């Protein structure tokens, strides 16, 4: 392959009000990923180019961007898989700070709102959990918080709602499906988290670099649990009777 035509979105809020795409030529190296190309620009052409990257191994989730209009991790997208005309834009769902860097701090305040892991009180230590029971929650714990799912989610991107976003549904599900957790966050997600705004269009599941089945395994499960507690009269009666029983047992 020859040189790469790399278009990078440049935006310096101190100097301009709108960003622009600037084209650079980068020599191709075998097995190169997009981050290599962007770093080449930063090191050899313009050191002021702002990017976020840490591990370069698809483990930290810092280098999220929209590569050829598809939200992807720069470190995980191989140049030979997308051809040598590449455009790199920052995540569109978040306010831009500079160049490819966006302000994702809104996520911290959402994460703060989700009730934390609450184990059954008075359990004998060390805890015992069957190996197979770990599996469900473990899938969600693969999340590296790259926030690509948030970026691609049309609810976050286009509409101003109270919806937390896919990442946070996965977070809540990871704790809900923890075998020793006692809380049920689905009602909270329906009331506060706006899970109803999700219309299962599954773009988040498509872009997830960790291949988590966000919609199928997290969001739909939480929706069904919320339906149990809030919409389904029969399930509500059963649940209530069950919890009354549990109270008696305690």
């Amino acid at each position, binding site marked *: 392959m020859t040189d790469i035509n790399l278009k990078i979105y440049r935006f*310096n*809020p*101190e100097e301009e009000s709108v960003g622009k795409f600037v084209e650079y030529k980068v020599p191709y*190296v*075998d*097995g*190169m*990923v997009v981050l*290599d190309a962007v770093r080449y620009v*930063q*090191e*050899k052409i313009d*050191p*002021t*180019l*702002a*990017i*976020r*990257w*840490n*591990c*370069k*191994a*698809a*483990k*930290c*989730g*810092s280098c999220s961007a929209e590569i050829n209009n598809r939200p992807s991790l720069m470190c*995980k997208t*191989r140049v030979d898989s997308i051809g040598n005309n590449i455009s790199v834009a920052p995540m569109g769902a978040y306010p831009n*700070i*500079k160049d490819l*860097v966006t*302000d*994702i*701090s809104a996520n*911290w305040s959402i*994460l*703060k709102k989700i009730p*934390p*892991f609450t*184990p059954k009180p008075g359990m004998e*230590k*060390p*805890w*015992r*959990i*069957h*190996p197979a029971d*770990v599996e469900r*929650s*473990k899938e969600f*714990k*693969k*999340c*590296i*918080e790259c926030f690509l799912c948030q970026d691609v989610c049309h609810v976050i991107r286009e509409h101003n709602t109270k919806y937390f976003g896919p990442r946070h549904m996965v977070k809540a599900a990871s*704790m809900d499906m*923890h075998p020793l*957790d006692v809380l049920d966050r689905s009602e909270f997600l329906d009331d506060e988290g706006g899970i109803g705004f999700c219309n299962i269009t599954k773009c988040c599941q498509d872009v997830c670099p960790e291949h988590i089945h966000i919609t199928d395994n997290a969001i739909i499960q939480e929706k069904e649990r919320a339906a149990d507690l809030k919409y389904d009269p029969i399930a509500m009666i059963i649940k209530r009777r069950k919890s009354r029983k549990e109270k008696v047992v305690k």
Partner: protein
Amino acid sequence: MEETFKTIKTDVLVIGAGGAGMRASIAVKEAGLDVVMVTKSLLGKAHTVMAEGGIAAALGNVDPQDNWKVHYGDIIEEGVYISNWKMAEICAKEAPERVFELESYGALFDRTPDGRILQRAFGAHTYRRLCHVGDRTGLEIIKTLEDQILHRDVKFYDEMYITKIVVKNGKACGAIGIKMNTGEFHYFQAKSVIVATGGCGRVYKVTSNSWESTGDGLGLAYEAGAVLKDMEMIQFHPTGMVYPPGVKGLLITEAVRGEGGILLNSKGERYMLRYSPQKKELDARDVVARANYREIQEGRGTEHGGVYLDITSKGADYIKHKLPSMYMQFMEFAGVDITKEKMEVAPTVHYQMGGIRVEPETGHSSLEGLFAAGEVASGLHGANRLGGNSLADILVFGRRAGIGAAEYSKNVKDIEVDTKVVNDEIKRIKGFLRKDGKNPYELIDRLTTAMSDHVGIVRTKEEIEKAIKIINELKEDYKNVGSLGSFKYNHGLLGCLELGNMLIATEAISRAALMREESRGAHTRVDFPKKDKNWLKNIEIKKANSGMQFDVVPVEEMPEEYKQYAKPEEY
């Protein structure tokens, strides 16, 4: 001219938000003190996420014979007797507690069939000891701690690069930093400072470390006047990726060998049978790394300059279940299906055993008010680190440093410094913003190449001297380094600042490596291939008027009863 900056007052300032920094912040918060945590990158992106294998803790779930004494013995033997015995004891004793604590925070470890935490075999551990979450243990730890940080309302400033630790009357009392995403300067006024910034793997060209690990904590502490120790001990991981070039150095977890992977040279020979007939692939990292290095040097390597690591015999399902991220890593970066093909591997820089000298119980450094924990602190690992001990280290000593700093801060009054100190520092940083400055990345490239070429896995006097010469040249060039742009998210500026710390780290590494005229653990000198009894010592480094001052200090002797836990040293 007066500079504008924000002042933030707190009791304890934690620099670094990896596992150690987060655990320290939680400990300070639990002690009821005010804590501010700052980090160079985003919350939850620290180098801890790269840890794959697991946490070493002598739970004895899989091998019931295991206990803290065996773990203690392993640490001392692996550290080739220059570890701090007290730290080894604390680590071995407290690690199980920290694992259970992590579990109570919500971490989910892999389980044994009867429901206890599953432990896997790892290099040079006597028993199967590593509590793990597939091969993403670090991710699990950091996300679990992140959750705690958020829900305990620990104040944190991410993308805050600390440039200086403020010292007054011989006491560390705060720090000055630049918030990268806004370009504002911050002055943190604190009663004590915990440094948990991780290692300096990025001073090498081929490294498994992430962008952040540029030895910032070493530079900060050294400039503040703290003593550094064991800096010549740099661990090389035997298995890093080789091809394609973009991912060269990327870590392949030791768990691959723990789960049964074998090393082969290009002739198809399982050469570890020659180098280490008993432990084979699961010998200490330095042994395996040197074996790999030698095979490649002697021409039995692959075309890309590596050796083969083969786990295909385990079957596709097992590999995908036990090593999912390794499978993915090779599939997506190299296009290699590890369930069918062999991996190409070569040694890569992995860990810095040395660092800030600390007191074992509290993590207090030689500078009053300055604490350190994690990779940036030294003592536990001695001349070589056991796999999985770094995660035990960050949790055990992160907590201890937090408690230590909290105790210390309770008895200290607020120390205010003159704004002149802050102004001077801001002026110094402003000096880097200039048009005609040398490109910092170019200098960093020269530095890392020099370190990889000359102070690598096998060292000689001549080679190290070459590196020192280059470092001295770069120190001159550093005076003219600079970047365009403003303070706001300027990577060029960041490169300038990091380079300063990297120069301190590299100078310490190479000059200490030159001093230690023996081969011990990770430090291998071709001109002194034997271990030397007279070098049962640590090299300590301190800032003096004339530059770096090196002192050789004997290792603190362990009490008689502890000696029986470890094999006596042989020469």
